[in-house]
């Protein structure tokens, strides 16, 4: 009998089914967008700088673009540790007109006045190799004319170290961040040498060691992301942002309880007929639970399609476009919240109608 009810509902009450799916999809879409944007924000600097893996060594500051670290200090600490490859990066914020761009050093053999322009940036600015560009240094306040010699990936400008250091106004041997790569064992040694305890951190993948000079001693703290390391300096913790985002996502799907209750009320006539035909209370509750889960699953699948096809929720941060970034864990949380809240509302409603 309950199975028959499940078969009848989509055919006879297609309007109600469609209404449920659309509303649930909309609520799930908004929840996923909120969570996705919060996660994108947490990985902002990694995206802007194009840092993908390794142990990133940086220093306290407002951002990786303003912090400075001495190459010799890191070199002396890492000396003697075998199996490490170290890359040194210096970032200079430059202004082109009123646009803020980031210039990074490269190991490539470029002449002093040559820069490579990120393809996305070149497309935006309509720049071709051979043209000259004027940049103002945010730190020195001076104007520099550089020639575009080719393209690189992303939204960055790339020049040789000496040019970047001159524009950044720093002495040679100073960098913004250093990327250390190697085996898990070598990285553990490197972390200890930098003055940090590896603890329970997973060394493979991505980690940030933030150096902080206290008197004559340099201490290092380990973080899971660059953004986390810098927002920590502003008094915000990554976990607060994650909890807040999950809270927002769950609050967005909270309305599904009312939708479940309302659906049960709209099905009251149908439920009464089935009750008269001899359907047991338990079978009707089981059928409504199946119906609830099916509606929530369909609505959630539709929301995944929506988030994949409509980039409505994205914002530009210093010309870097942030789009919602879906992570497996939070996605499951949203689905679990939607399915359980909606089904619970439906079950309570059906129980009321059947009794």
């Amino acid at each position, binding site marked *: 009998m309950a199975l028959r009810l499940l078969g009848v509902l989509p055919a006879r009450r297609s309007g109600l089914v469609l*209404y449920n799916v659309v*509303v649930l999809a*909309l*609520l799930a879409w*908004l929840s996923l*967008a*909120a969570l996705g*944007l919060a996660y994108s924000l947490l990985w902002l600097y990694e995206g802007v700088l194009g840092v993908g893996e390794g142990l990133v060594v940086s220093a306290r500051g*407002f951002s990786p673009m303003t912090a400075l670290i001495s190459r010799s200090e890191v070199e002396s600490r890492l000396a003697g540790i075998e199996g490490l490859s170290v890359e040194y990066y210096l970032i200079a914020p430059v*202004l082109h*007109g*009123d646009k*803020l761009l980031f210039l990074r050093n490269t190991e490539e053999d470029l002449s*002093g*006045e040559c820069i490579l322009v990120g393809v996305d940036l070149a497309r935006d600015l309509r720049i071709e190799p051979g043209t*000259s560009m*004027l940049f*103002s*240094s*945010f730190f*020195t*306040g*001076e*104007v*520099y*004319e550089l020639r575009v010699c080719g393209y690189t990936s992303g939204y960055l400008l790339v020049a040789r170290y000496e040019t970047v250091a*001159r*524009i950044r*106004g720093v002495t040679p041997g100073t960098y913004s961040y250093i990327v250390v790569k190697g085996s898990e064992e070598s990285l553990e040694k490197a972390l200890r040498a930098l003055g940090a305890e590896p603890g329970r951190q997973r060394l493979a993948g991505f980690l940030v060691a933030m150096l902080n000079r206290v008197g004559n001693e340099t201490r290092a703290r380990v973080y899971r992301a660059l953004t986390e390391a810098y927002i920590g300096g*502003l*008094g*915000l*913790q990554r976990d*607060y942002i994650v909890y807040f985002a999950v809270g*927002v996502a769950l*609050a*967005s799907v*909270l*309305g599904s*309880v*009312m*939708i479940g*209750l*309302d659906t049960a*009320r709209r099905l009251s006539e149908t439920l009464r007929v089935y009750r008269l035909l001899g359907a047991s209370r338990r079978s009707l509750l089981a059928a409504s639970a199946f119906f609830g889960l099916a509606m929530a699953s369909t609505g959630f699948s539709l929301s995944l399609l929506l988030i994949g096809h409509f980039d*409505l*929720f*994205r*914002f*530009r*941060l*210093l010309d870097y476009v942030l789009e919602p970034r879906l992570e497996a864990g939070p996605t499951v949380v949203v689905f679990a919240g939607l399915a359980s809240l909606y089904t619970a509302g439906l079950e309570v409603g059906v129980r009321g109608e059947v009794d």
Partner: protein
Amino acid sequence: MSLVAAVGVLLVTMIKRGLYTAVLIGVLAPLMLATILYSIPDATNLLVDYTGLEKPVLLVANKPLGGKCYPGNILSGLVAAGDTVLEARVLGVRADADTLLGELGLTGGYNERSGLVVPMDMYNALGRVSTVKLVLNNTVHEYRVAGSWRASTMLLVDPGLVEVGVLYVCLEPRSEYAAKLLEHVEDSLLATTGSWVLLLLFAYTPVVYASQRRVVESLRGELEALYNTGLSVARLFLSVYAGLVVLSALAALYAVSVGVVLVYTTWSLLGFIAPIPQPVLRSEISFCLLTAVSVFSATALLACRGVLGWH
């Protein structure tokens, strides 16, 4: 019985019987979230602790930007001192040298009306002279060297410069530029938040409609009693509708208030653990509240019609 009295009776009944709970559940999530999201701290507060931002930065663009702007151009020419002749790229600015260079902090006590700031390498190659000859468009000019800088381009500041008109050279304090950037980031964040909140509000329309319908259905007994006192059906419909709108508006106001209390309490409590910037409640929340009340008024009409029919 008058319309106002009927509305009063229905409102008191709704509150006494706790019917506001359903409406409150419907409006709480979108409006509380909107309040929290529109209370993010003012981004420019992040600049307070950073010194050295008062110095200006020299910006070159093809339109006037913020700060003081002067007409300018990028020119090619030759620079000569004694027997040394070098090719030079010159950023020419039509301005008073003592004013512009003083504000830029490149020179101290330079009182000439025109002058040249020469790249460090070139300054050394020319023998660190105090006067150079500059050839621009086959015309020879003589300028005093006001100073040197790390840039590779020469800076020529001359109030009588004629080769200008393509570019603008602007002086803008770094603090103002940084504040503008942070405001831009904040605006972008709030715009995205705004569209998200607005969509959430509309996504919650069926939820609010369902809760309002439940309220009207629960009032059947009271409506019959009011009808028996002689209130016309049309007035009865109007009084239920007005009562529902007032209840929804009160619930919306309550949701916003809860959001404000939540934000400031959290900020105060987290303040014991770490210094967190103070939240700033934006005026956009009033627009959000007005939109919500308008939407809830429309759903109230549909809910009344759904239960009572048109009269």
